[in-house]
């Protein structure tokens, strides 16, 4: 099976059966730089969709608009059919620089989303412990962020996002500040996590390999102004050994295909 290019150009696509996040006509301008122009996108429920593109294509801006952290100049975002303009409990964000509270332990950091919601201490710590174990950090509950490696810190960020039980997880280049070995391990864990958790992931990355490796769906954005140039669904079997994917023919072909498409934007 070949990777399927669903469409070219920014024309609206017919909505998939079960859409959780709908992006309609989103545009954003910073000063006189047009970061995003007329973005229309549907994110299917339970899938991992990557926003991929060279720097300056507005992928992080789009993610933060979906998160409600940045206000768009035009257009709407709907989650589960409801239009939103601010952060909400159905979305959780994982930050590029982890955004952990350095004065708080791993346990409190992970439980922080629940703490803000007013969940009782006993309950939120129990939930936090479960997700700390889920991301492979059991035994580190009482450590402080500065005592952890970059990869472990991002696991804390991921556990925090999981523990609020949001439908949609928004990940902003979560592995870019993590070293290569940890990144590989982390990507494998994310594939496993996605099957276990049955959540929708929206994942921003500038790495083609990473996008193809983990995504059900890849949205290619072109820069200046940021617009959707292509949507690709790499049909890769991820059920077996995650190591095998790196040698999979479809994986290699898709990476190459995307690279051919993106080459023109690289100076």
């Amino acid at each position: 099976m070949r990777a399927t290019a669903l469409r070219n150009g920014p024309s609206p696509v017919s909505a998939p059966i079960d859409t959780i996040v709908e992006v309609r006509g989103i545009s954003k301008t910073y000063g006189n730089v047009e970061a995003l122009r007329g973005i229309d996108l549907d994110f299917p429920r339970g899938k991992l969709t990557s926003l991929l593109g060279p720097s300056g294509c507005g992928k992080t801006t789009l993610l933060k608009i979906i998160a409600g952290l940045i206000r768009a100049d035009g257009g709407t975002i709907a989650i589960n059919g409801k239009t939103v303009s601010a952060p909400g409990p159905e979305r959780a964000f994982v930050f590029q620089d982890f955004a952990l509270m350095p004065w708080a332990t791993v346990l409190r950091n992970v439980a922080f989303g629940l703490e803000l919601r007013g969940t009782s201490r006993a309950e939120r710590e129990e939930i936090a412990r479960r997700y700390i174990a889920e991301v492979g950090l059991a035994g580190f509950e009482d450590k402080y962020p500065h005592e952890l490696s970059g990869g472990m810190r991002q696991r804390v960020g991921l556990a925090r996002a999981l523990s609020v039980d949001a439908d949609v997880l928004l990940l902003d280049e979560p592995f870019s500040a993590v070293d290569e070995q940890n990144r590989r391990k982390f990507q494998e864990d994310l594939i496993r996590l996605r099957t276990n958790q049955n959540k929708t992931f929206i994942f921003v990355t500038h790495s083609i390999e990473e996008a193809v490796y983990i995504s059900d769906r890849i949205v290619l954005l072109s820069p200046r102004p940021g617009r959707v140039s292509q949507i690709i669904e790499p049909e890769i079997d991820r059920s077996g050994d995650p190591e095998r994917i790196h040698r999979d023919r479809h994986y290699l072909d898709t990476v190459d295909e995307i690279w051919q498409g993106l080459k023109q934007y690289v100076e």
Partner: protein
Amino acid sequence: MTLFGYRIPMMASLLVWCVVWEVVGRLNLVFLLPPFSEVLAAAVDLVQTPSWQKATVTTLRAFATGMVLSIVIGVPLGILMGRVKIADDLLGMWVNIFSSAPLSAIVPVLMILFGFGEKTIVAAVFLFAIWIIVLDTRAGVRHISPSLIEMARSYGASRPALYSKIILWAALPEILAGIRLGLIRGVKGVVIGQLLVAIVGYGALFETFSRNFRMAEFWALTVILFAFALVIAELIERAEAKVEYYAGARQ
């Protein structure tokens, strides 16, 4: 510091200067400077007098009141300036002027406003201490990583929660540094205030001692004041060290 291969403790240099003082004092070059041993003896006597004890209570009370006021007002003001641009534009110039102005010149004005009493001393401490607290708090708030604020917002933090759970803590290292510098300035404020008012606390004592040329007691009181300022700064520095681990670990 090492000397001839031996480690010399920090206090050793202080000891050297005490010896120099003793020698110069015994040479009887200037009658203003009695030997250090005499000053020490005077200090021991001084702390037993009711007038010193009463002056100390008055001084400490004025100092503490002024400091509490400048922290309680200075920290929120600094946070406000760090977060709200219009507040920063309105107040920034004044805070900067006051933090570097020769404030001793204003103390006589305070006397007119607050009378010849403890209120003036409190006002002097406040005026000396608050500006550096405001400036450091503002700087701390300005340096908070934007993603930490975004994190709190994305997980639904209310405005009070954002301030009490994130901003205050993230800026804490700078706030404590500001308070430490404020305390040192506050000591200056209490001394200068009392000297100018001259009938309150240590000011009255200094006045008495210098007018009657009781130099040993005069110096004893000075040494006590210096020691007090040093101890305060040291205590705050210890508290700072406790939060420093995360000041360094911030992104």
